[in-house]
């Protein structure tokens, strides 16, 4: 991908900028789709039609929504801390976009092929916490402040089980590189980590070989549980229902972005949807083979077209990611909101002990097998 851009624009900073802005194009298109998905799925679940007037079946509703947001008046409350108030939405979106840098969209395209990919993902998400806190404090509004406090407490708590789950996968694969983790799951779907990981030896991109055999099947129940734990923590970290007490409409208006309007609200909105996709994509990468085709073969190989393989891989990752985004929407419109104490109970007394237990068990099995 980079070499393709280089052949058009030469080896200069423009090429790099274009290379870095490719995920932005994807993100904007995905956000339109996700907005439509949210309104339509919620409508179907409540036996309604949802938006029907804008375009056939209302499919251009998200474009109308975006145009509305762009034209809205940009209000800064008189008593807000102007500088921090204006900075927070950008910082929030920046953290989400920075996380996309290490997501491998195909075997050919990854913004930064870091050896520390997973660790980086964990670290960069903490920037969002700072942004939420900044927004909540700078708005000078009690609902915003309460919302941001709740959001921060929740995200910081659920980071612990999420990190533990990542440790489990890293222990099993032996690499923090996301590309390596995907390569380890190459082949048909039974090689995905959720089904117990690879069943034959694989050569990782870093050069070392991962020994594997059919005995890995005993990891299947463990990794299935790990996947569920990661998905629950991911839901909590993106502040989605049933973990949406930071934005609980009935108590807090809309949490830390109560005072935001127009474009700045759109930035928070984009960052929430981007975070949803990142959690979904990481779930797909860690447990469901990332960009690997579930059948183990690609159409592009049959036609001897490497570019088609890359496109297919991109398609598989996006498809898997969108499926988990759909599941988030599904859960949102199915389950009621948890109370604060239930939320903390779930994290500290259920997820953390279980994730530590599974980590011990997986570590033990990795050593003896």
């Amino acid at each position, binding site marked *: 991908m980079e070499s393709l851009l280089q052949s058009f624009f030469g080896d200069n900073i423009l090429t790099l900028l274009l290379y870095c802005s490719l995920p932005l194009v994807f993100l904007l298109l995905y956000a339109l789709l996700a907005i439509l998905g949210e309104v339509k799925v919620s409508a179907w679940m409540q036996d309604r039609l949802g938006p029907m007037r804008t375009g056939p079946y209302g499919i251009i509703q998200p474009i109308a929504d975006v145009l509305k947001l762009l034209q809205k008046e940009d209000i800064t409350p008189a008593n807000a*801390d102007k*500088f*921090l108030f204006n900075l927070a939405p950008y910082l929030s979106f920046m953290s989400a976009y920075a996380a996309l840098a290490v997501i491998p969209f195909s075997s050919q395209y990854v913004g930064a092929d*870091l*050896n*520390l990919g997973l*660790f*980086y993902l*964990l*670290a*960069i*998400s*903490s*920037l969002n*916490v*700072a942004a939420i*806190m*900044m927004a909540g*404090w700078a708005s*000078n509004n009690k609902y915003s*402040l309460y919302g941001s*406090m709740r959001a*921060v407490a929740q995200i*910081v708590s659920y*980071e612990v089980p999420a990190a533990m789950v990542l440790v489990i996968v890293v222990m099993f694969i032996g690499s*923090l590189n996301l590309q390596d983790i995907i390569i380890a799951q190459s082949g048909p779907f039974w090689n995905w980590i959720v089904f117990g990981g690879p069943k034959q030896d694989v050569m990782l991109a870093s050069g070392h070989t991962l020994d594997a055999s059919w005995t890995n099947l005993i990891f299947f129940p463990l990794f299935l549980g790990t996947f569920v734990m990661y998905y629950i923590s991911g839901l909590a970290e993106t502040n989605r229902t049933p973990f949406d007490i930071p934005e609980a409409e009935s108590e807090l208006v809309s949490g830390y972005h109560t005072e935001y309007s127009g474009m700045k609200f759109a930035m928070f909105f984009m960052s929430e949807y981007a975070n949803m996709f990142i959690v979904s994509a990481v779930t797909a990468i860690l447990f469901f083979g990332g960009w690997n085709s579930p059948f183990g073969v690609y159409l592009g190989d049959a036609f001897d077209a490497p570019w088609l393989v890359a496109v297919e891989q991109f398609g598989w990752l996006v498809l898997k990611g969108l499926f988990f985004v759909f599941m988030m929407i599904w859960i949102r419109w199915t389950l009621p909101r948890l109370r604060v104490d239930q939320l903390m109970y779930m994290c500290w007394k259920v997820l953390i002990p279980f994730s530590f237990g599974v980590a011990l068990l997986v570590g033990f099995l990795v050593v003896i097998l």
Partner: protein
Amino acid sequence: MELTILFYVFAALTLLPALVVVFSRSLIHAAFSLLFTFMGVAGLYVLLNADFIAVAQIMVYIGGILILLVFGVMLTRRPTDVDIQTSVMKTLPATIVVAAVLGTLLVTLVPAQWIQIDDMPAIDGTALEIGELLMTTFILPFEVAGILLLVAVMGAALIARKPKEL
């Protein structure tokens, strides 16, 4: 060339918010400025090929210490009017301490042999080596630090608990 420009960008990102930290009258502004200082320092670590330290810097300082700091400021005072002493006071003892710190730094910095980062061989990640060293040569300090943190966590839980539950 690009590295030099990047170095100055990150150095500015580190130092300019640090000036805000020192001179700002608002405690919250000072705390949030630290965010950018920490990010600048992480960038400098990346330039020095220390990728693990850079990410750990973001994780520990921005994800942990900064959040704790801001929480502390928000929860200990009423968030709207923070009136913590920000005027100049105790000039003489402060001057002595700062001069001592500056002197120590200069004694170390001036005779130091500086290496151009352009001349250094590119390293492909440091996580593996750091991990191996922590588990072999430096296992004792590593475990002691772990026990220290465990004790701190237990102490915090003990303080936060209601007395009647003891």
